[in-house]
Each structure stands twice: as C-alpha cells, then as structure tokens.
C-alpha cells in the first residue's frame, strides 16, 4: 500500500512539471503570436499597393509579354514549395501543410507531370524525406522573424528555374492566415504570375505617365511582387504556427491540470484506505489481547 502511495506521488509530480513546461510554452507562443500578427498586419499595405500598381501597369501594357506572367502551352514540369516550421509541438500545423502538399504532388503526378519539391522548415524536410520523397532544395534557417532576405533566398532559385524552363509552374503550399481565429493550409500557383484582370483587354494610356515603358516597369515590378508574396507566405505561416502552438500547449496544460486533479483524488483515497486499514489492524490487535 505504501508503495502505491509513493507511485501516485511521483506521477503527480511529473505531471506537474510537464504542466509547468507546457504552460511556459503556451505563454511564449502567445507573445510570439502577437508579434507575428503585427508583422502580418505591417506587411499588408505594401502588398496591397504592389498588387494595385501591378494591375495598373498591366492594364496599360496591352499585350504584356513578360516571361514571368506568360503561361506555358505545355506544362511538363512542376515545382511545389512547402512552408513548414522548424519545430514541432504545434498540433496539426505541420501535418496539415504536409498533407496538402502531398495531395498536390499526387494530383500533378496524375496529370503526367514531373514534380519537384522545395521545402522550408525542418519538420517538412524530415517527414517528406522519411516518406521517400526526393527534395530539391531545403531551407532551414528561417527564424521566427522572417526577413525579406529570407524570402529572396527562397524564391530566387525557383524564379531562375522557371525562367530557364526547368519548371513550368510553381505551386506554394503554406498555412494561410485569414484571421486570429482561422488559419488553414492553402495552395497558390505563384508562377507564372496571375496578373490582375485587365477588363478592357486593350492598352489604356494617356491618363498616366509611365516612366519607363510598361514593359520595363513590369521587369522590376514582377520580381518585387514575387519576393513580396514569398515574404507574406513566410510571415503568415509563422503567425499561424504560433497560434497552432499556443492552442496545442493550452490543451496540454488543461489536460495536465485535469490529470493532477484525478491523481490527487486517487492519492487521498489511497491514503484514507491505508489509515482505515491501520486502525482496523490496531483494533483487531487489541481485541486479540483481551
């Protein structure tokens, strides 16, 4: 009986220390989440403006023929870029993104296309490698504060592959940040770039001075747009990761609290049983002496 009491005490103590850890991780994720959310919000004016500008320039360029927006007639090689986290303990965050990427991989393969995968984040890399996928490039050095430079380092090789004709399309899989309450894996075809719709289909001109020509403007605008999109994916993915970790750690903490309550109850019951038994033994002993 004494053994059992000791076991329960040890168990309670270990659950309590686990709870301390998960609670700390929850708090850390909460504060990181706030900062990550600020970054998402701070990036959005630039993105919106760039998109608007792209629309205006495309509308005035008439038959735009920039290689980054030109659709290929025959698509035979496709690249997937998967954005995951470097660390786990964040619920289904990584698993969901990876599953989505695998679905796209299969879809594209079923279309008879050759598919290559680039991965951001250690979790995506190890999982996919373990499952036997061949990875083209991996980027592991992205921190919790993604910088524009990180985005450039990821997108530039892919852009060059695209321009050289080594890939015909690029799909990005990342965890889209819709709002604080809602994040989900999303797929976007990043290359060729989907130019904002040009309603009239004809070149508008005269009402705006474009300097230099629309073609040259596109030459600068499109790579900037790519980098910016990539940056947005990184900050959104990071913010989503922090939310996922916070939720996971919160439920872990709650579970631990519940377990501690259960264990404490069990402990008290066992202790009481022990005391009762000891009294019974004493009474029994006394009775035997009479």
């Amino acid at each position, binding site marked *: 009986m004494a053994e059992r009491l000791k076991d329960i005490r040890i168990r309670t103590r270990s659950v309590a220390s686990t709870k301390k850890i998960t609670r700390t991780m929850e708090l850390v994720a909460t504060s990181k989440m706030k900062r990550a959310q600020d970054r998402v919000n701070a*990036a959005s*004016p*630039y993105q919106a403006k*760039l998109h608007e500008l792209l629309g205006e320039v495309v509308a005035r360029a008439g038959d735009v023929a920039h290689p980054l927006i030109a659709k290929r007639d025959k698509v035979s090689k496709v690249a997937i870029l998967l954005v995951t986290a470097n660390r786990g303990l964040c619920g289904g965050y990584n698993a969901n993104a990876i599953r989505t990427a695998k679905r796209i991989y299969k879809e594209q393969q079923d279309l008879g296309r050759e598919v290559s995968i680039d991965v951001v984040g250690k979790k995506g890399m190890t999982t996919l490698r373990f499952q036997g996928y061949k990875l083209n490039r991996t980027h592991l050095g992205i921190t919790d504060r993604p910088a524009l430079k990180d985005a450039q380092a990821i997108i530039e090789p892919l852009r060059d592959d695209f321009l050289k004709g080594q890939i015909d399309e690029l799909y990005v899989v990342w965890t889209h940040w819709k709002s604080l309450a809602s994040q989900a894996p999303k797929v976007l075809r990043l290359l060729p770039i989907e130019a904002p719709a040009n309603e009239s289909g004809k070149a508008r001109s005269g009402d*705006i*001075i*474009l*300097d230099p020509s629309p073609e040259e403007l596109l030459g600068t605008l499109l790579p900037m747009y790519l980098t*910016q999109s990539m940056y947005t994916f990184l900050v959104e993915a990071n913010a989503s990761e922090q939310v996922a970790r916070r939720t996971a750690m919160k439920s872990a903490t709650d579970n631990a609290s519940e377990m501690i309550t259960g264990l404490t109850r069990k402990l008290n019951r066992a202790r009481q049983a022990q005391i009762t038994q000891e009294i019974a033994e004493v009474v029994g002993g006394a009775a035997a002496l009479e």
Partner: protein
Amino acid sequence: MELHVDIISPEKPLYSGQARSVVAPAHDGEVGILPQHAPMVAKLGTGVVRIRRAGESGGETVDRFAVRQGFVQTAANKVIIIAEEAISAADVNSAAVSAELTTLRQQVESHQLKGDEQDKARARLAWLNAQKSLAGA
C-alpha cells in the same frame, strides 16, 4: 494645397503625412513632385527621398529617407513611394555603413570581383552611399 505622402516598405509602412513637395530619386534622375502633379508611375533608382513639409514651429522641415528598388506613384495629390528597402535618416547606423563602404569600395576599385559580383557590389555601394548621405547631413 498639400500633398499626402506615404512611404511603404515590405516590412512596415515608414511614413505617412502631409507635405509641400517631394523629391524622389527616379531611375534616370530626380523627380520633383508638387501639388497638382499629373498622375504618374515611375521606377525608382537608389537614392534619397526628400519630403518638405511645414515644421511644427513654423518654417519648413525636410524628412529624408534612403530608398532602393521601388516605385513612386502619384495621383490626386497623393504620393505613394513603395520600396523594397527604405530607411529613415534616424535609423541609419552610420558607423556600420561607413565600415562596409570602405571595404567594399576597396574591393571594387582593386577589381577583385568578377562580372556578376562586381555588379552586385556596385549596387550595394550605391545603397550604402545613399544611407551615408542621410547620416552625413
């Protein structure tokens, strides 16, 4: 009549406010923008944006920002400058900029770098120079 000016960089909006005039470094020379400017979109070079606005205690103040790779757009008395890199005069780390400038300049002048690297170094030099000119004044 005044202009409304925004400077937006990818990581955050840098400046938003009223101004009397703006001078931006376009790709082929500086472009000055006063109220009632015709609608325009121009590519930026590497250089310094100067925003002239009414000072808090009368007179005029000039805010300066170094920018690299971007566009200036103006329409209806609004000027929007979006740049892949932008930094305000107060944020320039002049010691670090000067140090990098000296080593890089030596490398470029001694022709240590080949083709592509040389171009990159020159672009970087221009960007450092723009920042330095902010810190200097």
